[in-house]
């Protein structure tokens, strides 16, 4: 993940998650992101009392995840290409159906032009591979004041439908 992360509510923050290689030992302190394989193998029991995050591929069926979501501080969803919109659905399912209350982060190839869609699908933060995409975040998030689709996430837009 890049160093710069955008919190969709609080603006720019510094990235404080260690994206852990599957083979690397779990550090003693700090926040670590685990792959699904590692999570299932070692689980949160390997690091009691620590903040752990889960990285999910955009092909993952989040509804059939055998994971205790309450043990998860953050879920990172991948955008291998900005034109691949599968993670938008994953985020809505995590937030609206599975009731996940931790942080949902978008990672990878993301354009500033997608920030508002991300926020409205339930993402809390964005860590784009190209951090310059965050330069116009504020404008991008206020491009629209109206929406036709109800959403409990993101900026409060006036509902037109």
């Amino acid at each position, binding site marked *: 993940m890049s160093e710069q992360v955008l919190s969709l509510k609080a603006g720019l923050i510094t990235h404080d998650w260690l994206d852990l290689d599957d083979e690397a030992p779990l550090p003693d302190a700090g926040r670590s992101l685990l792959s699904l394989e590692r999570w299932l193998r070692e689980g949160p029991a390997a690091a009691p009392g620590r903040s752990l995050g889960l990285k999910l591929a955009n092909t993952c069926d989040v509804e059939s995840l055998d994971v205790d979501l309450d043990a998860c501080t953050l879920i990172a969803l991948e955008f291998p290409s900005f034109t691949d*919109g599968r993670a938008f659905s994953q985020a809505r399912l995590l937030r609206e159906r599975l009731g996940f209350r931790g942080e949902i982060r978008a990672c990878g190839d993301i354009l500033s*032009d997608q920030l508002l869609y991300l926020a409205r699908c339930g993402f809390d933060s964005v860590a784009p591979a190209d951090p310059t995409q965050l330069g116009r975040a504020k*404008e991008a998030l206020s*491009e*629209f004041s109206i929406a036709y689709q109800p959403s409990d996430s993101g900026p409060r837009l006036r509902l037109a439908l």
Partner: protein
Amino acid sequence: MYKYNELDQTLVNERVNQFRDQTERYFRGELSEAQFLPLRLQNGLYVQRFAPMLRVAIPYGTLSAVQLRKLAEIARKYDKDFAHFTTRTNVQYNWPRLEAVPDILAALASVEMHAIQTSGNCIRNTTTDALAGVAADEIEDPRPWCEIIRQWSTLHPEFAFLPRKFKIAVSASAQDRAASRVHDIGLQLRHDDAGQTCFDVIVGGGLGRTPILGSLIRQGLPWPELLNYLEAVLRVYNRLGRRDNKYKARIKILVKETGPQRFAEMVDREWQHLQGGALTLEDHKVESMRAAFTPPSYRQDVPEQGFESARSTDPDFARWCQHNLRPHKQTGYRAVVVSLKAPREVPGDCSSTQMDVVAELAERYGFSEIRVMHEQNLVLPDIPLDHLHAVWLKLAEHELATPNVGKLTDMICCPGLDYCALANAGSIGVALELNQRLENLDDLYDLGDLRLNMSGCMNGCGHHSVGHIGILGVDKKGEEWYQISLGGSSRNDASLGDRLGAALSRSEIVNGIMALLKVYLNQRHVEESFVETYRRIGLQPFKEAVYV
């Protein structure tokens, strides 16, 4: 027709500003070619063979006279004085400058129009019957439902980056004029036993390189659940549609590979969670939408006499009445099909002057409303009998009264190699030559109702797979060749055409079509149409005539 409220207008204005900013960032180098591409496509902007092409949305094919005049003005100011109406009932400008597009969008926004989602891998313009609201065989006006779908699908945050484009059509009459079985989703509106509106949902139809008729996956969907169910279909598709190969990315491939029954179960599972949720439609919402489409105040006393005597004294007028009028719900009225298929014109093209003429006629005689047909003609839906002669005279003066609607020369045709960057072969030249051969109207009428559809490449924008006669342009070592198929239809008898045999060269294709027509004329039974004869006698006699 539906009028924007303050919220609709604000959203479209905001979209213009967003696109202006995206264009400026592209020119400043802040957006790369690859980044700008999907963004501009979602605003209908292609870069074509010679110039950019801008596709403007005409939601469910309904236009006001004011809007049509604006389209004419834009053609005059920013293009070469004409525009092209498409099989998706949209309109295309073939020569705008990229720099001018934000200004064109602003001009469109001033008359409640936009180019949102007219291209790109997102939910496209929802289409329906061009005779919606006036057709004699209509169960219910589909336009309120189309407008509800338009709003729900506009800038939907979850479905802006789908595997591929997604097209929804709504049919609400006994005769399907919306081609609902060849859309990603076809909704067939009907009334259930209790008289309540419901929808039969057909999924996974489509044309293009893999033409498939859609499968019925839900019967009698209750109207309050319409958007919940659409959302369920789209979510299953967004998650599971193939993204590894753009030619296998449409929902039709997912439905085919999964099997319609299993696909229906997957949608049902998703729908169970969404049922009764935030998108559930309420009575008052639908009622207020219906109120936007209440019939105009028709005259109850339209005299028939003048119309009848004009028909009996003027054979040209009578011929036009016979072929270019459609029955109307309201006694004393007709829907007028304005043919954009004059013999020497490109099918679907319309000059600024012609657009102004149609707008003026709509204002004077037809409650200011115009429709676009997916067959690439326009419709004046509400013309009283006593003004038909005046309307005809004016249309004829501007080459808009060719009496060929539903006949062979009323062909559907994509822009082909003449404009499109994808095309393998020209379609316009073939169309013009066919017109010359069938210049004699009696010959044309003798061929009866005949749908000839032509696409310049296998993406199938000219709907060749559902033409009674389909022509597909193919490239063979840099030369233009044409593949014929027979027996297709997009109506109630929906079927995909059968391939006749090897492709014909440019010099052979028109003779080949003429040979097909001769077989029909020789073999038909009384009152039998071309496609009926074909279904009775099969491919062989046609094959023998073409490949002598």
